[in-house]
Structures are given as C-alpha cells and as structure tokens.
C-alpha cells in the first residue's frame, strides 16, 4: 500500500462509490475545470523547463514517436480483429484508442515520479501532443479507406484544435516564453494545488470507470484481457524506444506510460464523427473501464520498473 500515491486512493474511492451505486458525481463543469488545470499545468511545467533547451535533438525523437503511435495502432488492430473477432470498424476504432494517449494517465505518472524524485526530460509533454493524432488517422484509414473524402479537413481541425491539444500546447508556449516567471505568477492555481486537483479528477474517473462495468460484463473476457495486455505490450515498445532514443530513466518510463495508455477523450470524439458505425461503448469500456484503472494502479509502477531495468539504474 505504501507504494501507492495518495491520489490513486481517490481513484479507488470513486471506483468503489460507483460500483456501490452511490449518487456521488462531480458536476460536468467541475470535471472540465479540473481537466483544464491539469492540462495547463503539465504544459506550463514542461514549457518552463524547455526554455533553456536545445530543441534540435527533439525533432528526430518526435518523428520516432509518431511512428510508434502508428505501430501501436497496427499492433492492436489485428489482435482485435483476429483474437477478439471484432468487425473492421470496431477493431479499427478500438485500436486507435490504444495507439493514442491518455493525459490523465500521464498526469498520474508525472505525480508518481515526482514523489520518487525521478526526473525526466522536459519535452515529454510534447510527446503527449504528438501521440494524440497519428492513431486517429490510422484508425480512420483502416475503417474507411483513404478516400473518406472531404471529411479529412474537418477531422484535422477537430483534432488539432481540440481542447486538450490547445491547452497543452498553449501551456507549453506560455511556459517557454515566460520561463520560471510563469510558474511563480500562476503557480498558486496550477502548481501547488496540482496533486489535489489530480486527486479530485481521479475521483471522478473512478466513478466514470465504474459505469463501464455493465458493458464489460456484456462483452466479456476478451475486452478485459486486451485492456490489460495491450498496455503492457505498448509499454514494452515504449520502453525500448525510450532507451533507443537515449531518454533518461524517467523519460523512458513516461514514454512507456504514454505508449501503454489509451485515449478516452480525443479519440472517442474523433471516432464518433469519422467512424460512427463503430460502437463507442466497446472502446470506452476497454480504455476507461480496464486500461485506465490498470495503468494508474499497477501499470505505472511496472513501467518505471521496466525502465529501471533497461537503464540498469539502482534505487
């Protein structure tokens, strides 16, 4: 228990309350408020640390990370199609969720590392932004073919200007332009309360997660297995890539977490618009109902351990 971060207990509280059918819910406006703070905070912190850095080395890493997003989607797809026996559109839609990332999971990993004094490269938040997109493109192409005309422009617009990317990129830029001054100035809302905000966010995530149980019961064992195995496979790939790219121990673990996480905001919205034939309950059940809880409780410590081993770090 002592290895758990307190914020994870808030997730469990929400989960248990939800499973017991408590009437606890955070208002939608508050959930959004918390999300906005988390996204800006992650962006700002990354941006401030990025300020002094030489960005030239980051560009090739970004390309590699895009490729990873594509590869992850192409690994998930046949697994879902052949082992899970899902039809093309549903397999493609679920695969896109796993090729993309979850900022909530990233925030928990960041908090987890901070409490263990594990440092990481400041440009990791950039990878969050970059990883949101390729999986969506691949998912839509698999489901619809490339000629899915006209819609590409609006899909690009929706995705690139979605809330999470705008806030992350905006925070990065503000932090980068302003440097440490930015954090001194607005830290009273974005930095000091960060973990409390994360805790409340996770409480609501627990409640949302509990709401997935009935779908999971219906679609059974495969979705649960997939929701646990796929993140571990993804994280293994992320660990390998992080190590190859020369990331630090912490950076490797974070990249593994990103690879192992599954989207539950940007991708569902994009699929609803671009692949409406897919069943949104399936992918949300897997990503919100299985992978998210797995990652925030067991996954993140595991990925850190994997990174530790590959880097041969002593603790």
């Amino acid at each position: 228990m002592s290895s758990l971060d307190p914020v994870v207990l808030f997730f469990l509280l929400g989960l248990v309350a939800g499973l017991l059918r408590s009437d606890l819910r955070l208002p939608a406006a508050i959930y959004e408020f918390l999300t906005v703070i988390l996204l800006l905070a992650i962006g700002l912190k990354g941006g401030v640390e990025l300020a002094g850095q030489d960005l030239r080395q980051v560009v090739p890493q970004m390309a590699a990370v895009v490729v990873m997003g594509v590869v992850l989607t192409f690994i998930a797809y046949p697994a879902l199609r052949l082992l899970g026996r899902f039809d093309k559109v549903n397999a493609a839609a679920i695969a896109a969720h796993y090729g993309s990332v979850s900022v909530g999971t990233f925030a928990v990993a960041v908090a987890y590392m901070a409490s263990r004094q594990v440092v990481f490269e400041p440009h990791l938040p950039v990878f969050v932004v970059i990883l949101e997109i390729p999986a969506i493109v691949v998912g839509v192409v698999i489901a619809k073919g490339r000629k899915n005309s006209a819609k590409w422009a609006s899909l690009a617009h929706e995705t690139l200007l979605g809330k999470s990317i705008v806030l992350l990129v905006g925070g990065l830029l503000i932090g980068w332009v302003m440097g440490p001054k930015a954090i001194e100035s607005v830290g009273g809302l974005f930095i000091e309360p960060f973990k409390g905000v994360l805790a409340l966010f996770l409480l609501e995530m627990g409640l949302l997660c509990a709401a997935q149980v009935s779908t999971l019961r219906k679609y059974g064992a495969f979705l649960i297995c997939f929701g646990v195995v796929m993140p571990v496979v993804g994280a293994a790939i992320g660990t390998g890539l992080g190590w190859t790219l020369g990331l630090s121990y912490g950076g490797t673990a974070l990249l593994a977490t990103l690879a192992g996480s599954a989207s539950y905001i940007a991708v569902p919205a994009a699929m609803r618009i671009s692949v409406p034939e897919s069943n949104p309950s399936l992918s949300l059940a897997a990503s919100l109902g299985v992978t998210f809880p797995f990652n925030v409780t067991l996954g993140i410590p595991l990925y850190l351990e994997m990174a530790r081993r590959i880097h041969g770090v002593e603790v």
Partner: protein
Amino acid sequence: MEMVTRKLVTIITEAVIEKVLIGELDNLRVSGYTITDARGKGHRGLRSAGWEHGANIRIEVICDEAMADSIAVKLKEQYYENYAMVLYVSDVRIMRPEKFQP
C-alpha cells in the same frame, strides 16, 4: 391573436455531434434552432449528461412542412443508423410566419 400553423421538429441525439448537426441544419437553411442539454435512455442505453460522451442534446426547429420533411429525410439517411437519435414532429401556432422563412 392571428396565428398560423407550422411544424416543430424536435431532435434528441448525442451531444458529440452538435456541431455536425448544426452544419446540416444551416445547409438546409432553417431560419433558426434552439438547443437544450439533456440526458436520457433509449435503445442505445443510458445517456447521462455530466460527461460529454454520454450527454444528449435536444434540438428544436420551427419550420414549414417541407422543411420538416427535409430534416427528417436527411437525418434518417445519414444519422439514424449510427447515432442515438429520436426525432418527432408536432404542430405549433406562431405569429410571424415570415420570421420562420429560410
């Protein structure tokens, strides 16, 4: 009060496609629409406001019979199959028919 009869088309559907549907209505040149947030249950299960992916919206359009038909046809063709959606039409009496002309 002199009033004329028009159609009120009410659509209940997923909040996530609000922008898209508004685009369709604008294309059809409706004179206006009104949207409220809603939650509900139907064949596609519980849809519980509070979280974007689960929320419903309720769109109302006042228009003439032809437009009501166009809306119904459009949505039936393109949205009924893949989205949680209900559409119903009723008669309402309005005062300024010119206001509801496209």
